[in-house]
């Protein structure tokens, strides 16, 4: 049994890290907003989904005009990533301005309901537009970065088998790492980052220290949504096909990852996302072996969430959360 698990381990790790990287960046969006407003922004999964649609629409448009063939694919992708993240960033700011700011002083539950409302609105808006334009709400983008690679784990030790992956997986992981390092640097080393941490610690005191709280909150939403939108594009390139409902399950899992890492903690969200992705992939590949065929791959979520519960029982503040700590 152990030999078989070891055999498939390289592949599980590669797939798990790719999926976990996506969870991690979306989890960042949840955790940043929670850190600063103590609001669970349930619309974040939908911002990710909208980003995916904007990205694919741009790629399709560029293919139609022949631009995609004219420039290197990686340049086109960077262009799409930048434009999409700016658009979704402003969308996040707009949502905050319209749906959350007027409710900032009302009970937390009200804002939460407002967030759920925004999430449904976005879902159906995107579905409506796509269906109206294409006649079908399932959208398939042009296929890019499809070259296949394999890492020869078998040459290290014969107990491993090779891991297969696509160029897009590589790009996904690299892009996510860049985004995470960038964010970490921004929050910890810049003036604006310091302002964000201050607002997260105590909004009123921060405003007395001449910090423009509204601006900082807008900025937080901008960054979180921009990262979410960019991940959407990467997701669409990686998996090829998207529909307006991808944000729901992914958002839920990313939120879980944020809680696992300690909500409000940026590094925690990164670690939580990766951990959840790898756990899930490991369960899907090996659960049948581990339980002797009683539970199959369909119980992967049960497995992953059972571990989540165990972690939270012993460490209710999450893996990286400290009882009193700086948030964001």
């Amino acid at each position, binding site marked *: 049994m152990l030999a*078989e698990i070891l*055999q*498939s381990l390289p*592949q*599980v790790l590669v*797939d798990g890290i*790719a*999926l976990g990287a996506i969870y991690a960046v979306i989890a960042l969006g949840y955790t940043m907003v929670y850190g600063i407003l103590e609001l669970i922004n349930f619309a974040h999964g939908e911002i990710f989904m909208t980003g995916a649609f904007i990205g694919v629409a741009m790629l399709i448009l560029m293919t139609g005009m022949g631009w995609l063939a004219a420039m290197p694919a990686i340049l086109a992708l960077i262009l799409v990533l930048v434009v999409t993240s700016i658009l979704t960033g402003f969308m996040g700011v707009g949502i905050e301005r319209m749906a959350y700011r007027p409710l900032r002083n009302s009970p937390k539950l009200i804002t939460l309901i407002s967030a759920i409302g925004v999430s449904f609105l976005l879902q159906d808006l995107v579905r409506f537009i796509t269906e109206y334009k294409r006649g*079908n709400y*399932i959208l*398939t983008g042009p*296929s890019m970065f*499809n070259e*296949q690679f*394999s890492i020869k784990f078998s040459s290290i030790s014969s107990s491993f*088998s090779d891991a*297969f*992956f*696509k160029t897009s997986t590589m790009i996904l992981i690299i892009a996510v790492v860049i985004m995470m390092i960038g964010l970490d640097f921004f929050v910890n080393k810049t003036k604006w980052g310091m302002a964000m941490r201050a607002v997260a610690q105590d909004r009123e005191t921060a405003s007395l220290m001449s910090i423009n709280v509204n601006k900082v909150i807008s900025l937080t939403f901008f960054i979180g949504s921009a990262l979410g939108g960019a991940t959407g594009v990467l*997701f669409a390139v990686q*998996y*090829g*096909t*998207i*529909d307006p*409902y*991808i944000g*729901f*399950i992914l958002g839920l899992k990313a939120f879980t990852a944020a809680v696992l890492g300690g909500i409000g903690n940026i590094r925690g969200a990164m670690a939580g996302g990766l951990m959840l992705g790898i756990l*899930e*992939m*490991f*369960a*899907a*590949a090996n659960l*049948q072996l581990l339980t002797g065929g009683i539970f*199959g*791959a*369909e119980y*992967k*979520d049960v497995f992953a969430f059972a571990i989540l519960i165990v972690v939270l029982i012993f460490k209710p503040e999450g893996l990286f959360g400290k009882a009193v700590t700086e948030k964001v």
Partner: protein
Amino acid sequence: MGIKRGLKVLAVSALSLGLLAGCNSSGGSEGSNGGGGSGKVIKIATQTPLSGGSATLGESIKLGAQLALEENKKKFEDLGYKLQLQPYDDQADPKKGVANAQLIGSDKSILGVVGHLNSGVSIPSSEVYEKYKVPMVSPANTATEVTDRGLKTVNRIVARDDFQGPAGADFAINKLGAKKIFVIQDKTAYGTGLADAFKEAAEEAGAEILGYEGITVGEKDFNGVLTQVLSKKPDLVFFGGLYTEGGQLIRQARDKGIKIPFMGGDGMDSSTLVEIAGDSVKDVYYTSVAADASKSTEGKDFSSKYKEKFNKNVESYSAYGYDSMSVLLKGLETAIEGSDGDLPAREKVAEEIRKIQDFQGVVTKVEFDDIGDNKFAKVYIYKFSEAKYPGVQEGEISK
């Protein structure tokens, strides 16, 4: 497909049935168009979606039925009756289907119905037909529940959903030579049912099932399950589920270097599958209850007749519309003969249709068993050998 939807539909229709039944007991209209000098009029209704998303398919069934009716007109004139087609639009909506069924039931000159396209519409509507004893012959309904209720008036000429799995297994083992099979299903009623039926039949035929795994509808990453496939090295993967997950699964499998054939049910029979999977769709098989009419000489003749008359190309169910109508008229003819030329009662027509034997249609032979399933219904296997929809018919499996 879609047992869940079927249930919803049933609930809705039960409600509307109650309502409509209430209205009708006081109304009870007479079919007064029967008069006139040139013999009595017999109407045959069609009920298919003529508007909305599936209008193309609905229209093609209606036109197929119309063609059969017109070809039989002469024969019935000799018997002293004037045949007329009465098309209804069910809008692929169970509520509309049931409302139309009430109209059909109360029009005494209608002696039969060809329809519907959707099982979800057919199931509640046929409850009404049963009440009024109007015989129905369905050209396209595959849900098991359509005939499993044992209604005397309900017949179908296509295969049942639960035959797709065994047919797929038969083809996979005997034609493709698969010995080690990996089964994946999507945990829905449709997907699990199909996969279970396939698995059972494949095991019986001597194949080894290397794994039986589930995926979640709505997710996009199936790499975990595919890693299992990769390490177990089967020679075929069977997927019980719909095209959205199917397309994604095939695509990711090919990315992982899994080059073996995939097989699925009619849930994979969609152009979107090709769109999602792209070139990966090569070497994917799916089962369908509809035959490719261009494969047989009768089918080709029918296609050219159809084209000439309506200036349209045949759709997958056109010929089934034609055959349904032919069967219905055949039963009607026997019933008229049985009653010495008098207008037969609807029950009588229904009985005669059920008794039909060895009827040779354009795409299928017809003989009903005691619940109205066609004994000669076949399941057809299609294959994608390039990224183009639909696939090419590769084989047919009969019971």
